[in-house]
């Protein structure tokens, strides 16, 4: 009997000992911290790349990787200027509607095949094809005949040809100032046809005959994808066929680290080599003497704003919108919340882009705001909802804005939604106002003025405030045709002023972006645009 009782007890004891042993093994593992790789550049991404097909990417992080793995005819350098990529040289005619690109014959995909002009034509057709799931056909839509081709009314794109293996000719319907810049975007990057396959039914493109990479992507950029564990990490290695392939860095490891605090901890513990410093940590990093020489900073080509739904009463009244701008002390917000590391926005075009103009912002004047509201028929103020997506920075800014607006009788209710629900409601014009920002995809004022304020883009096109002004539409269309930099700068500065006067947003600020770079890293320069990242000249000292 005693033996029968002892059995389960012994089993329980054994189980307990086993579990304790497991815990012990886990702890013992702590004694064997792995050595870091001296030739690996360790970086972090906030979100896992889901697809690395340049025709399909829309996220910043996916675009960043594509710019390393693929090539366009041109690319952005670290300062945001245009540099040769697949095209060694290019020329335009006098009317700036005909571009001739001469390809660099040294360029090869990582599978060893040389890139030729017909690859460029095929890659552009793939994006513009009827029923293509590529979400950004607008990147190439200025090419003559692109519309007919997309609608299935033409077999080829009339303005796109490859007269020989190393020449690409592109003709536009009319001059378009930012066209060359747009050729550096992922949607205009070139892919090897032989590496693509039809996706299965049910996946976007499956029924449309759209070919995509069955596994890791193959491009002709300076880096190739060596390993890709979705949700965990992405490992890049130099493309041995590329003339600028890195001789000093053997691997670039992007780890997916969703939490900002964790990314900072990884950098401070030496596991990351370069860190984009999250806004709440910027003050601490700047005050820390250890990083004094290791911080790079640059005004971001980005603007933060509170969009006001211009089509929705009472916000369709410009007096109400101006009053809202006058009610918020933006200078104080910048001083307190960003510790002064931002530039007040008095327009949408950020500093660093032609067309940016240092105009006088709306004066903080709560009494004047109350008077304007009274003139507009709201002497007792008005209620208002401001929508935001989840972000700690957004909370801090909007709570302060809520306080300022309360002072002038505008009672703000903050509505927080995750990105998908936020975007759906805001793009459909179902909200009074929303807090958002806009990044430059390409360094041109057109990238801010046209999508954000042209009535053609009302809703999902970028103009989520439903700002509509025919005279301004005409000015925007005319400015896009200007190819002279000086003329274009003046035109966009004027448009930005006219729009600012209409107060379609509560204009907030242009942020600064800060990178911390490990002392082991040399030769790295933070890019002006996320697509301008380039590690080919970077070196890493041994530990």
């Amino acid at each position, binding site marked *: 009997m005693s033996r029968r009782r002892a059995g389960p007890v012994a089993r329980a004891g054994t189980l307990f000992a086993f579990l304790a042993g497991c815990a012990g093994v886990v702890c013992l593992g702590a004694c064997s911290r792995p050595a870091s790789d001296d030739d690996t550049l360790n970086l972090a991404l906030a979100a896992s790349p889901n697809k690395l097909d340049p025709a399909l990417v829309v996220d910043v992080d996916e675009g960043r990787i594509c710019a390393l793995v693929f090539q366009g005819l041109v690319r952005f350098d670290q300062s945001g200027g245009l540099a040769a990529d697949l095209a060694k040289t290019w020329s335009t005619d006098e009317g700036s509607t005909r571009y001739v690109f001469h390809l660099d014959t040294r360029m090869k995909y990582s599978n060893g095949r040389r890139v030729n002009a017909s690859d460029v034509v095929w890659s552009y057709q793939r994006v513009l094809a009827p029923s293509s799931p590529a979400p950004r056909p607008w990147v190439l839509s200025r090419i003559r005949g692109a519309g007919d081709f997309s609608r299935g009314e033409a077999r080829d794109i009339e303005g796109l040809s490859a007269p020989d293996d190393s020449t690409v000719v592109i003709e536009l319907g009319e001059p378009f100032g930012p066209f060359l810049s747009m050729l550096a975007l992922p949607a205009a990057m070139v892919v090897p046809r032989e590496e693509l396959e039809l996706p299965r039914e049910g996946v976007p493109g499956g029924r449309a005959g759209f070919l995509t990479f069955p596994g890791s992507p193959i491009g002709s950029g300076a880096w190739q994808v060596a390993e890709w564990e979705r949700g965990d990490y992405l490992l890049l290695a130099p493309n041995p066929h590329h003339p600028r392939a890195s001789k000093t860095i053997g691997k670039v490891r992007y780890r997916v680290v969703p939490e900002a605090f964790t990314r900072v901890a990884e950098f401070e513990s030496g596991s990351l080599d370069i860190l984009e410093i999250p806004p709440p940590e910027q003050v601490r990093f700047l005050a820390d003497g250890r990083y004094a020489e290791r911080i790079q900073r640059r005004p971001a080509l980005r603007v933060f704003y509170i969009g006001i739904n211009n089509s929705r009463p009472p916000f369709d009244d410009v007096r109400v919108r101006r009053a809202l701008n006058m009610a918020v002390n933006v200078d104080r917000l910048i001083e307190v919340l960003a510790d002064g590391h931002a530039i007040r926005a008095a327009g949408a075009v950020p500093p660093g882009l032609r067309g940016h103009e240092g105009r006088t912002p709306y004066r903080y004047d709560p009494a004047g705001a109350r008077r304007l509201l009274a003139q507009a028929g709201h002497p007792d103020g008005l209620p208002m909802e401001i929508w935001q997506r989840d972000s700690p920075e957004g909370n801090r800014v909007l709570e302060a804005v809520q306080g300022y607006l309360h002072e002038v009788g505008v009672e703000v209710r903050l509505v927080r939604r995750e990105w*998908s629900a936020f975007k759906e409601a805001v793009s459909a014009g179902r909200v009074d106002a929303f807090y958002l920002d806009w990044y430059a995809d390409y360094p041109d004022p057109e990238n801010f003025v046209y999508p954000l304020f042209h009535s053609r883009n009302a809703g999902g096109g970028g103009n989520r405030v439903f700002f509509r002004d025919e005279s301004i539409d005409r000015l925007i269309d005319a400015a896009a045709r200007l190819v002279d930099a000086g003329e274009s700068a003046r035109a966009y500065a004027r448009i930005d002023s006219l729009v600012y006067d209409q107060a379609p947003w509560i204009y907030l600020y242009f942020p600064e972006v800060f990178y911390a770079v490990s002392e082991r890293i040399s030769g790295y320069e933070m890019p002006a645009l996320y697509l301008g990242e380039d590690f080919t000249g970077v070196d890493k000292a041994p530990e």
Partner: protein
Amino acid sequence: MFGYTIRRLLWFVPILLGVATVTFLLMFVLPGDPVLSMVGERYDPETTERLREEMHLNDPLAVRYVKYLGGLARFDLGRSYTTGEPVWDSIRKRFPYTLRLAVAAMAIAIAIGVGAGVLAAWKWRTPLDYLAMGATVVGISMPVFWLGVLLIYVFAVKLGVLPASGYGGGRPIYLVLPAFTLAQASAAYVARITRSSLLEESGEMYVRAARAKGVPERWVLLRHTLRNALLPVVTVVGADFGSYLSGAVLTESIFAWPGLGRFTLDAILKRDLPAIQGAVLFMAVLFMTVNLAVDLLYARIDPRIQLGRRVES
């Protein structure tokens, strides 16, 4: 027991059908549009409409539901909108990460929890008991994200003895912080339940008989009382283990652990319907399996429990 197991397994089918239906319908009630997650911040209506067609999102609800159930009947969870991968492949890749973390966390929770509970019961109403129970209150009250951040700061940033985050190619050192973070609340509950169960059992006749026979107190506790006191512990451990297997979203996010929790969260944020539905179904299967295992374990631990039979009073 075999018959009972088969009956319980058969119940999986209607339950899963219910879960699948509720998840499918919920996706239509929730705000958000999967197409808008795919097109970035600048898009035109023609593109979104084309994608909706491609993804069959314009099909009538009933048609989509029948197609979905048809896929499930063939064990096909569909393909992710965002990655294009079969959902089952994604779950199969991500689940081992979660399983590894869940097993480690559970082992730590049981080792610490049962150990602390036994110690507290053995040293009842002594400073050691008060200390252990005080620690459990702290453990239960401490939010996971706060503890995780604290552990990273102390052990990775300040002391530099443990990695801050990541899977680290499976090296055990990378498990330490996330597993302890995930385990702390369970360990605290297990300790409290172990202690109270042991104290409750210690007044039973069989325990008093053992004491009367002159068995030393520590043997009374470990050999006689502990076994019977384990039953409520198994319940808590089973429930927690089931939830850990479904992915610990907070812990996985803080520690950049590429498990099922983060996969599901990403899918929800992107409105990746096939991935959400697949993940929820998989979690339901896990939960039911763990519950079944716990019920079977009851019978092993306490032979008085007869599974599947109604007790007549």
